[in-house]
């Protein structure tokens, strides 16, 4: 007797096989449009919050950007305020900012004197490279261990996974970074402790801004090796901070999938356990995993501020820290907007991807 095909048992409503009848292209377009509108409104809200905070902080920008002798000279202070538009009422500053934003102009950084968009274009690839690798690392490890934990529920691998996820979620990222740096750089000397490359190396010609990619494109394998060596420690520490979340989500989603009628039917029909696990449990867990991966990416974008400081990474995180401590208003707002755009974009793509896996999402 031949084994039943997977498709022949995939008839339950729990099994994601395609969009429901009668809800084709127009439903999908509405879904995309809804997400886009929500993103724009969120972005608008972020600009208001950023400006609002700058009004509430009891510090004047010139205090942190001019020398104390210069502060005593009203002419110098006036020149500074005029240069950065700080002499205008806050509402006019805000409207001008919004106007500039529509043209991609994020204003001038008081700290660097450069357009904020230029600074961010310089620093974003460093951060994105770190976050992308960290997300991929936590995704691989979290999904693999999550599946194993679900498959071996209440046995030692499951308990171990629970401990790992608890530790990952509980330990603060900055503490992990300090301990990681002390252990692997200072004590063991296995990994470099700061920067993106050895100080004596020249960065590869810029194409993507990702040193690991650009060095390969330029055929500079020694630079590639150095870039990877510098990535391992900060990326691993970031990955650990979200590993627990992905692992727990994967485990519970796979367990949910394994509890469906379709799986019971598959088991009754004699499908091997590993096939049931991968084709039903894991497949049905795909949407939540994608969603949590997107959330994890956003979390890591924020967490890089600590990690970049400790590892002198030179990306957006360090730029954000400096802008905040020096009340560089244009930079703070610019970073908020760009991070929000990246986060919204990733979530938007995750929604689209998740809806491709599970059409029910479009209906929600």
């Amino acid at each position: 007797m031949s084994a039943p095909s997977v498709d022949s048992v995939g008839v339950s409503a729990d099994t994601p096989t395609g969009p429901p009848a009668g809800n084709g292209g127009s439903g999908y377009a509405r879904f995309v449009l809804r997400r886009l509108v929500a993103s724009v409104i969120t972005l608008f809200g972020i600009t208001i919050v950023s400006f609002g905070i700058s009004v509430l902080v009891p510090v004047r920008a010139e205090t942190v950007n001019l020398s104390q002798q210069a502060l005593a000279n009203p002419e110098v202070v006036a020149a500074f305020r005029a240069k950065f538009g700080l002499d205008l009422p806050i509402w006019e500053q805000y409207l001008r900012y919004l106007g500039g934003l529509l043209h991609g102009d994020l204003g001038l950084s008081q700290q660097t004197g450069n357009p904020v968009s230029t600074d961010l274009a310089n620093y974003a690839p460093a951060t994105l490279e770190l976050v992308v690798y960290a997300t991929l690392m936590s995704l691989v490890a979290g999904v693999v261990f999550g599946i194993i934990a679900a498959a071996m529920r209440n046995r030692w691998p499951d308990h171990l996974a629970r401990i790992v996820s608890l530790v990952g979620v509980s330990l603060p990222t900055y503490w992990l970074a300090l301990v990681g740096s002390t252990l692997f750089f200072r004590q063991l000397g296995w990994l470099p402790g700061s920067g993106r490359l050895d100080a004596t190396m020249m960065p590869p010609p810029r194409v993507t801004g990702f040193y690991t990619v650009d060095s390969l494109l330029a055929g500079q394998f020694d630079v590639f090796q150095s870039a990877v060596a510098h990535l391992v420690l900060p990326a691993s520490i970031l990955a650990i901070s979200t590993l627990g979340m992905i692992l727990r989500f994967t485990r519970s989603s796979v367990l949910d999938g394994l509890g469906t009628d379709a799986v019971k039917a598959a088991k009754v029909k004699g499908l091997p356990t590993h096939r049931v696990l991968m084709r039903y449990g894991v497949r049905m867990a795909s949407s939540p995993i994608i969603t949590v991966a997107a959330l994890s990416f956003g979390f890591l974008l924020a967490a890089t501020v600590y990690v970049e400081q400790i590892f002198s990474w030179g990306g957006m995180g360090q730029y954000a820290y400096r802008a905040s401590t020096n009340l560089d208003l244009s930079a703070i707002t610019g970073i908020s907007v760009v991070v929000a755009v990246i986060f919204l974009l990733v979530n938007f793509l995750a929604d689209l991807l998740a809806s491709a896996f599970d059409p029910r999402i479009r209906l929600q």
Partner: protein
Amino acid sequence: MNTKHPRRAVAALAVAASGLLLVTACSSGDAAPAASSNPEVLVIDQSFTAQSIDPATIFQVTDAIVATGIYQTLVSYQGDDPTPQPLLASAYDVSEDGRSVTFTLDESATFANGKPVTGDDVVFSLERLRNLKSSPSYLMDGLTVTAPDEHTVVVASENPASYIPSLLTSTATSIVEADAVRAAGGSDADDAAETDGAAALFTSAENGVGSGPYQLESYDTNSQITLVSNPEWWGGDAAYERIVIRNVKNPQQQKSNVESGESQIALDIPGRVAEGISTEALDVNAYPSPEVLYLAMTMDASSPTSDPAVRDAIRLGLDYDALVQLAGPGTLRAAGIIPSNLIGSIPADDAIQTDVEAAKQMIEDAGATGSKITFDYANDYTRLAGIDYNIIAQAVQTQLAAIGLTVELNPTPTSTSLQRYIDGETQLALWSWPPDYGDPDNLLVFGPGALIGERVQWTADDAPDVVALGDTARTALGDDREPAYLAWNEALVEQAPYAYLLEPTFTLVSSSAVGAKLDPMANLNLSQIAAN
């Protein structure tokens, strides 16, 4: 829609990336930390405070260090000698009345673009500094600059100004090649603050407008600044082919880097941390600070510190030796606002002596026992030789509690704390004053009615005799300067609402293969670093 491919693609990508990282990291693990022992490259670790490498706008420490490699001033400190020595000027002569200094330019001096350094360049550079209305523009207040001929420059003042040579050691007074800067949109005109457009020139690589041994290769205020040697340097060969200055915030990280050979100089390792370094491969040297850590006590009527008896009691009740211990090895007791390496300083033996019982009695007699005083300090400020202000503030709180005062700590970020201090809102505050040049003239801001005096509500009317002493000191000449500044300094000890705590020590940790020293202003001069 076929959903298998995206899922597999994502999974494959993730596995490939993770595997790549792990495999490559493992294979490169032992090579990484020891990266650098290229003798042609000097790596310096510093916690960056960088903002602009245009000399006429420089006031941050990192920029000042970088500028010493690219640009040159008329005079500079050589080694630890506090007397300004000729640099672009081959000689200088102070007039008898102290109102002008004539500089004779070195005729062999050239910029990296090959053009000679002329009087026009000097006038342009200093006038641009004045008219850009930037942070260091105040240095030119009351000064005029003329160039009688191509190789002579006269810097004059209406009043005697013996501090002019010291002032012209500041990197903000660096000389740039005028024609190239003008061509890039630069201006030294009165309206330069609005019209100058040369900022981009100074961050562009190898722009050629400096006369130092190095040129800028890259300027990233976030992570790394790189210099390359200037092959046309008029002073000979640069000691290094490249200098890489990295932004490393953590002192422990700096220590690990310099110990492992990944960097050759670490600039922000506090003395206490440096004590743990014991290897012949590294030199650990201490340098006196040009600034004093002090307490500012407002004279505003709403504060208990407005009572002179309370201020005297605070000065008497502080355990200075304990504070010196807390600040780390090499720290000195401060006897006045002028540090011991400048003229006019008060010998440490003459500093006020602690007498807790007397202080307690004074507080009691003043009816101030139990008075509450808010103590402001910057809880994130570590630039002063790595001293942790939190620890100093907590010690002061405990010491003043012993004489009957209740001190409430108000730790805030530097920006907030400084704003409160500038606005005159603090009752008790912990600060230091980093001078821009090595002359006590720079400290007259502490006088009554001056910049710092106003922050503690100490007006010129409160102490006209101290105002007069300050005026005398500023215009004194020759051998009269030292006693004049000493008299002013002593008057501040007696009357000013400050308590002088300590003079920290800056520590420089460097590879013994690198001849690095700090100058009298505790700055690193890149052009003076020689490869041993």
